[in-house]
């Protein structure tokens, strides 16, 4: 069939321009297919015995992923079609009917679709083993995943992408039918007007970002703004920031670049004139896209940083809440690999003050000091008669009750809380917060005496097996069992899965935003190549040419990235203040990884741009 031949030949000859489009298709399919495979995979649950958690995280993320893929494919397709408008016009000029052109494009799409589906599912199948292994490792298990070929995943992927292909074909048809032959001859430009900087919107933009930041970093408890706006605050912050970001790209950038152009010492040197004026048009023209990219980057970095931060802090948080490997109330059991074992008697005492009645576990000072030495914590010299010290490992200035100085009444005496410390020596799950009193006070306190067992085991985080065995042996004689390895595993598998999904989605967002900038820059390079030919004729050498291109591309890539990182830093600062944990190191790692991939995109784009400019000279 002639049309089919034409479509096939088209593909063969213009492979390079198709390549990028096919590559983005394959990429989307690989990502989606792997994700769906993981969703349908029950190995993880079998291996780890965890609940529905993973698959529900996966299902939720698959929706986000799908949404993103739709946008991404629509974008790649419209970029691809734009490139081919001239070709379509030429067929039309030669008298090919629109219907036939439509058929031709349909065959092409069909072919591209089938090729990408086969390639995508193939690569996805290989990738899923790698990704599954990574997921399992992140969740803290040392198992290796096998190859799994999931038929439901294949069917799911094929259905979803067939619909998408149908959609892109329709997009193609639309281009053909909307196209008027006269457009071919009118193709070129009437000069666009130079963007003008509005000082007012530049100021509003800067102010709205500043306000957003101010609110984000304000102390939730004491800030008046938070009190007034309350629960809607996060939305206000996000709204202000997005609005400000748009104005930043739309006005502040124009304002700055205009100012730079006025400094003749800078502008009238080398190609700085070209660099600044090109950027003026580019940034203003793409303000919306740049805002979207900046916001997406900010979201990705924030989410990734937060999850990575939590993950990174798991062992610390576990140690804070569960410093002892195994602890329970009641009789001792035979535990292997024990480093040391304490049997202590605590007292469960009822305290009252004006407001209410409380129950606390009490511990004698000498018992505390014994534990403190074992755990490398500070000893206490003495506690006065009639006073106590509260150990509250999760104390937080903003949310916790401050009980220092409070006086409580027990059955026969009064106790004043002399200190409130932010750490514990026992497992919270077994004892709750505990009060320490002098040995003599402890003797006379009236309350139920409770025998507690504490076992410190070597390599505690890896002793999950011992923990499980112990759990099975627990009878009525032992209560309130807490285990460091079990808690650790619990947090790891949850946060690990979240980290995996977060990184995975982050990677997808990153790739998609990177590709979108790439598409934009390259289509603009195509539009602008004549300008660079003029420069070549004037006597601009290749080095200067490369420099101005590299600078322009760097700013187009760098501006949204820097804005995104700045937004994310503020958000993460707020987040770490809120949770009271230090996440600087994991966040920096995460940002570095993100930036690195962006840099790769940057290099790739700059080279492609430069190549277009160089090739344009051949047609002089």
């Amino acid at each position: 069939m002639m049309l089919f031949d034409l479509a096939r030949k088209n593909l063969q000859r213009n492979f390079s321009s198709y390549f990028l489009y096919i590559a983005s298709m394959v990429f989307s399919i690989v990502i989606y297919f792997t994700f769906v495979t993981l969703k349908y995979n029950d190995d993880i649950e079998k291996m780890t015995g965890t609940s529905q958690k993973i698959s529900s995280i996966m299902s939720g993320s698959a929706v986000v992923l799908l949404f993103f893929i739709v946008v991404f494919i629509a974008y790649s397709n419209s970029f691809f079609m734009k490139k081919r408008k001239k070709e379509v016009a030429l067929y039309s000029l030669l008298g090919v009917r629109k219907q036939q052109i439509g058929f031709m494009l349909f065959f092409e799409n069909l072919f591209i679709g089938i090729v990408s589906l086969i390639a995508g599912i193939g690569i996805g199948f290989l990738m899923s083993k790698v990704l599954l292994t990574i997921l399992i490792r992140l969740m803290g298990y040392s198992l290796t995943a096998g190859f799994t070929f999931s038929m439901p995943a294949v069917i799911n992927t094929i259905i979803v992408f067939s619909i998408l292909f149908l959609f892109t074909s329709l997009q193609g048809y639309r281009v053909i039918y909307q196209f008027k032959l006269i457009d071919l001859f009118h193709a070129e430009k009437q000069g666009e007007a130079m963007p003008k900087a509005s000082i007012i919107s530049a100021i509003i933009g800067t102010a709205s970002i500043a306000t957003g930041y101010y609110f984000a970093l304000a102390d939730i408890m004491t800030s008046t703004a938070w009190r007034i706006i309350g629960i809607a605050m996060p939305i206000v912050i996000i709204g202000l920031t997005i609005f400000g970001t748009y104005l930043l790209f739309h006005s502040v950038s124009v304002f700055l670049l205009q100012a730079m152009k006025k400094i003749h010492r800078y502008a009238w040197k080398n190609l700085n004139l070209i660099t600044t004026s090109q950027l003026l048009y580019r940034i203003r023209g793409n303000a919306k896209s740049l805002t979207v990219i900046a916001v997406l980057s900010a979201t990705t970095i924030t989410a990734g940083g937060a999850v990575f931060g939590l993950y990174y802090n798991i062992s610390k948080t576990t140690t804070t809440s569960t410093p002892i490997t195994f602890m329970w109330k009641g009789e001792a059991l035979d535990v292997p690999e024990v480093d040391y074992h304490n049997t202590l008697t605590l007292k469960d005492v009822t305290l009252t003050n004006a407001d209410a009645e409380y129950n606390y576990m009490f511990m004698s000072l000498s018992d505390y000091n014994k534990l403190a030495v074992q755990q490398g914590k500070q000893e206490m010299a003495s506690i006065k008669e009639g006073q106590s010290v509260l150990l509250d490992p999760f104390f937080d200035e903003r949310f916790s009750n401050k009980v220092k100085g409070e006086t409580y009444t027990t059955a026969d005496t009064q106790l004043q809380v002399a200190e409130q410390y932010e750490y514990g020596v026992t497992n919270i799950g077994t004892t709750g917060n505990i009060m320490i009193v002098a040995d003599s006070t402890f003797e006379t306190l009236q309350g139920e005496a409770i025998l507690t067992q504490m076992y410190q085991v070597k390599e505690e985080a890896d002793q999950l097996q011992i923990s499980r065995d112990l759990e099975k042996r627990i009878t009525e004689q032992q209560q309130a069992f807490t285990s460091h390895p079990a808690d650790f595993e619990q947090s790891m598998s949850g946060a690990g899965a979240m980290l995996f999904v977060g990184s995975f989605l982050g990677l997808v967002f990153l790739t998609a935003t990177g590709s979108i900038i790439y598409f934009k820059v390259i289509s603009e390079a195509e539009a602008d190549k004549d300008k660079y030919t003029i420069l070549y004729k004037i006597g601009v050498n290749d080095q200067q040419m490369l420099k101005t291109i590299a600078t322009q591309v760097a700013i187009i890539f760098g501006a949204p990235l820097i804005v995104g990182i700045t937004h994310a830093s503020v958000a993460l600062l707020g987040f770490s203040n809120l949770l009271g944990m230090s996440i600087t190191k994991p966040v920096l790692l995460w940002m570095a990884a993100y930036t690195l991939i962006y840099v790769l995109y940057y290099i790739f784009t700059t080279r492609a741009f430069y190549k277009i400019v160089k090739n344009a000279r051949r047609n002089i």
Partner: protein
Amino acid sequence: MQPLLKVNNVNKTYGKGTQVFKALQNISFTVDEGEFIGVMGPSGAGKSTLLNVLATIDNPTSGDIFIGSDNVAKMKDKALADFRRDHLGFIFQDYNLLDSLTVRENIVLPLAIAKTPVKEIDERVNRIAETFGIKDLLSKYPYQISGGQKQRTASSRALVTTPKIIFADEPTGALDSKSATDLLESLSRLNETEQSTIMMVTHDAYAASFCQRIIFIQDGKLSKEVMRGTQTRKQFFQQILQVLASIGGEVNDVI
């Protein structure tokens, strides 16, 4: 006196094997400093190829081109770019102005690339703008001015670096007759007062009549050469028409 431009046996061929097309064949001629020389010939004769080769935008297949004492036919790419920047000026039919820059910035550009100090740039731009009568347009953008003004801007850009030689490729091709005359008068005035060397490709006998000497090329070869000498411009114009008629050029264009 040493000629400013010496073209020696220049050939330019396209294609390979049996499908060779000879765009230029054994072209040799010289241009002295301060000359205003025209290149004429029918479409496809190789006028623009010759100009591109001389202007170092394209490479000759063989032969030598000396501009001053430099053989540009043997220069490497990077050196060529610098050479163009420092010694050559270009005026094109379609102006080739950068539409994202103002008129002033367009003229500043070649000086900026040559790293000229800001103060000197300012002086030179003002002087050249005065010469071409575009002083009031300096802060306008190309899309805001007329074709004739654009071409005067382009000419200012070409001349602001005081190049050794200016290549003009159909500079009046897109202009109405009034603008064309203005431009040609400006160029010929500059040629007289500043001793600028100008080489202009045109198929328009009227434009060519502003030159002092015209070389004709046909099928890639030099065919004829006429000098204005002491003739008036009108007499010279008639002479050009006669030559064009004899070689079958585009006489129709001027009627």
